[in-house]
């Protein structure tokens, strides 16, 4: 428990210092995006790394949250917080409805189903142009909190930073709880977890829904932060990007999720100097990670220096 407490404190300390050392607004913006991705990846890692289930459609859930925050306040005058909650609730219902029958099957059906679901959501967002603005996307009204409007990057930074610290804390709590142990146990041996009384389907559904809701809420935050949504939010490649963050940072590693999100959010920006070759370099770097750090950055380093995560 000690090492994880230190971990949270380190993350919090970095987040407190960052805005004061960031050279300009560009870096602050990048940090907000990193933090948002980190929160999504934390949720996704609970599903992929800890419970051993895959989702290739998480950007779809992100899209639902983002568009709930765009459409409901714009067309129906809902309060942004209520819209955010509605998006999360809709995501929870959808994720639950899809997951329940899928998890009763064995094998890789979940990957296929989530892949399909993500694509369907993306298509729906593109086609329902009268509500969503179609492929062009639409602007998002500002987020007001208790009569105070969130507008500057710096304000958003503190909100997102606080959410990130809370998410790390909650994830660590969850992993080290009866719920988290059951989750890891069904990954380790499904039949063993069943015979000690774990309702495997229920647990898989619960963590799938929870990680989907994380994505949806962060979709809403992103929408308000950027002030604009487009169907690219829910793009298939965005889903893959999120999974890649999990894998590169380290499966079943909370701090690995943060490292993966930070690195893969920054990398495309850093590679912009390669002009047209950045995708190639990006791919080569990912391959390098998979060859030399197949377990992900944080678990590999933790094993090397003899420290558990």
């Amino acid at each position, binding site marked *: 428990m000690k090492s994880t407490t230190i971990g949270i404190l380190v993350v919090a300390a970095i987040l407190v210092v960052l805005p004061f050392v960031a050279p300009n607004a560009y870096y602050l913006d990048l940090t907000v995006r990193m933090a948002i991705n980190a929160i999504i990846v934390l949720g996704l890692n609970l599903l992929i790394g800890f419970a051993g289930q895959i989702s290739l459609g998480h950007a779809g859930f992100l899209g639902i949250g983002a568009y709930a925050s765009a459409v409901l306040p714009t067309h129906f005058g809902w309060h942004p917080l209520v819209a955010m909650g509605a998006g999360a609730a809709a995501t929870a219902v959808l994720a639950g409805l899809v997951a329940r029958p899928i998890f009763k099957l064995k094998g890789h059906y979940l990957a296929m189903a989530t892949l399909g679901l993500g694509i369907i959501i993306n298509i729906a967002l593109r086609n329902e142009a009268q509500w969503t603005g179609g492929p062009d996307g639409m602007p998002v009204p500002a987020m007001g909190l208790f009569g105070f409007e969130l507008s500057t990057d710096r304000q958003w930074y503190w909100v997102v930073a606080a959410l990130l610290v809370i998410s790390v804390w*909650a994830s660590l709590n969850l992993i*080290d709880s009866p719920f*988290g*142990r059951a989750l890891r146990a069904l990954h380790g*041996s499904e*039949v*063993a977890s*069943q*015979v*000690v009384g774990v309702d495997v389907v229920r647990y898989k559904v619960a963590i799938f829904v929870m990680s989907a809701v994380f994505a949806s809420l962060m979709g809403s935050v992103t929408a308000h932060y950027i002030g604009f949504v487009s169907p690219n939010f829910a793009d298939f490649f965005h889903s893959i990007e999120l999974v890649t963050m999990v894998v590169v940072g380290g499966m079943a590693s909370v701090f690995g999720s943060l490292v993966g999100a930070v690195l893969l959010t920054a990398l495309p920006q850093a590679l912009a100097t390669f002009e047209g070759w950045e995708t190639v370099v990006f791919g080569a770097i990912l391959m390098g990670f998979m060859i030399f750090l197949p377990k992900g950055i944080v678990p590999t380093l933790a094993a090397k220096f003899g420290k558990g995560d």
Partner: protein
Amino acid sequence: MARLLEVSDLSIHFGGVKAVQNVSFGIDAGIVYSVIGPNGAGKTTLFNLITGVYKPTAGEIRLDGEAIHGRSPNELARRGMARTFQNLQICMNMSAIENVMVGAHLRLDRNLVKAALRFPGLKRRDRELRDEAAQLMDFVGLGQYVEARADSMPYGALKRLEIARALAMKPRLIFLDEPAAGLNPKETIEVDHLVRKVADSGVTVVLVEHDMKMVMNLSDRILVLDYGKKLAEGTGEEVRRNPDVIAAYLGAHA
């Protein structure tokens, strides 16, 4: 005395293979009951049927008079059934003691939200559970592995870790599938003593085991299976003298 477990005319077919055919027997509370038979006789399949991993093609299983066949393993766990596996089913992604703690799953508050927000009582309960799991590891002779990772433990220790996990359920009935398989003679004697200790603590033990010395030493009653059928049932002495059993084990002309 009422039977704790009553199995009647139990059968399962996998395609054309009749792995278990019309097997009937009963187990009284508090005894050690062994199931023996040559390889492929259907012993593990029988365990899988009773613990809900397989659904029977036909027949009945009653626990305390209540029909339980066709129920899922997690429902049966709720009714006090625990088991270990012939081929190890240890969660290698967890520490040894966490494997034992998972056994107490049903006795804990498993609420997701409370866990994430770290409700005060939960942590204390978890510490108590950790102490309890450490005691159980001590009980099965794994005191030295309390801090170990599961994937760093030797095979013989993992076999006993499975028993500790099953005991963490506080079961009424425990199914041990070849607890001594792959162990050396010294370890086998230790497991023999351990099973005796478990039985003495009031848990009804159902044992599948190839080590005949251990089976004869521990069992109150023995069921002999051959080709999925019941060949004989009785005390160790009765089974040992049964001509069908002798034929099955030593060949028809022995």
